[in-house]
């Protein structure tokens, strides 16, 4: 059980790392959004599932409900995170940011 939890945690961390590094490495605002929001979402998914599993060690009604709450958090993250990204990208378009195209310098 612990091993599954650790593996899931590590997968989540890898996604989170990808998101964080991606924010730094991608060249412009639009492409930065790709790793930023979504890999974070994926990372949260894995890590929260791992923690929910770990929480089920002592299986009682209370821990089950807590784990379910963690799953609810995942659901809400999945609802709100793409919306937030959409809001940001919409703002970027309205603000008149032009997308980076191949060959330009990193912004």
């Amino acid at each position, binding site marked *: 059980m612990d091993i599954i939890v650790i593996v899931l945690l590590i997968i989540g961390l890898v996604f989170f790392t990808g998101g964080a590094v991606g924010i730094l490495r991608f060249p412009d605002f639009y492409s930065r959004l790709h790793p930023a929001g979504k890999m974070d979402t994926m990372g949260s998914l894995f890590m929260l599932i791992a923690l929910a599993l770990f929480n089920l060690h002592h299986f009682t009604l209370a821990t089950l409900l807590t784990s379910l709450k963690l799953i609810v958090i995942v659901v*809400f993250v999945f*609802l*709100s995170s793409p*919306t937030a990204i*959409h*809001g940001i990208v919409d703002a970027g378009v*309205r603000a008149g940011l032009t997308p980076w195209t191949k060959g330009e310098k990193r912004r």
Partner: protein
Amino acid sequence: MKILGLIIAVLTGTLLIYTTSDFPSWGDPSSPASTHLSPHYIEKTLEETSVPNIVTAVLADYRGYDTMFETTVIFGAGVACFFLLRVPRRKEPVERLYRHTLTGMTLRIKDLDEVPENLDEFERIDTLWAPYDLIIKTVCRLLIPFIQLFALYVIAHGHHSPGGGFQGGVILGASFILLAVSYDLRTAKERLREKLGGILCAVGVLIYAGTGALCLLLGLNFLDYSALASILHVDPITARSHGILIVEIGVGLAVMATMIWIYDNISSEGKYEEGL
């Protein structure tokens, strides 16, 4: 000014760092702060108020007087914002923009009497109009009821888990703010009218202070919830627990209404016509 600020900041900092050496070290269980007052709270809360969350018990009962004024601070801030910003009447004729939904034409209407007859085809828009954003609106529409339920849950379960009136009230207020952000201010105001909000603020604090005054009328001290036992037909200790819940509801109401009030006034500069 910069140098003066630097000097003052550094002086204060030096004084404070100099005096930290006399502090008990961080997290020391035998420091005076941990041995004088708090053991009583930790050990007696459950038997004196039957509330497992010590913070809630201390907040709403032992130091309930503080919390009453904390709520009053929020209320006062709301009234002050309203007093400062609300624009009572327009000198110049009101100018509004209406958009024809089918053609996308925009009408500029100066006098209120000449509102387009067939309003179904027109929608009122802000001067800084942003087109209809489907995703944000739909997702917010789906989320807002859940946020509100969560807020009520937080208020109701302040006894057993972190949370309570203030946190729940803020979340409840945030749900209305989210409505105002994702739609527009007018839609949000349609759900909670200005007058209702203003009265709710006062009613929230009134629930708190009124509970205190009721205890006074029942013959005990101000805010001594055990006086409620005779009304609620329970023993005094459970009455304290219920008293805390009543008070938390009052705090929640007041905080919710005030947060919305402040947001409305700031985001629309007190005009309530259009906001962020």
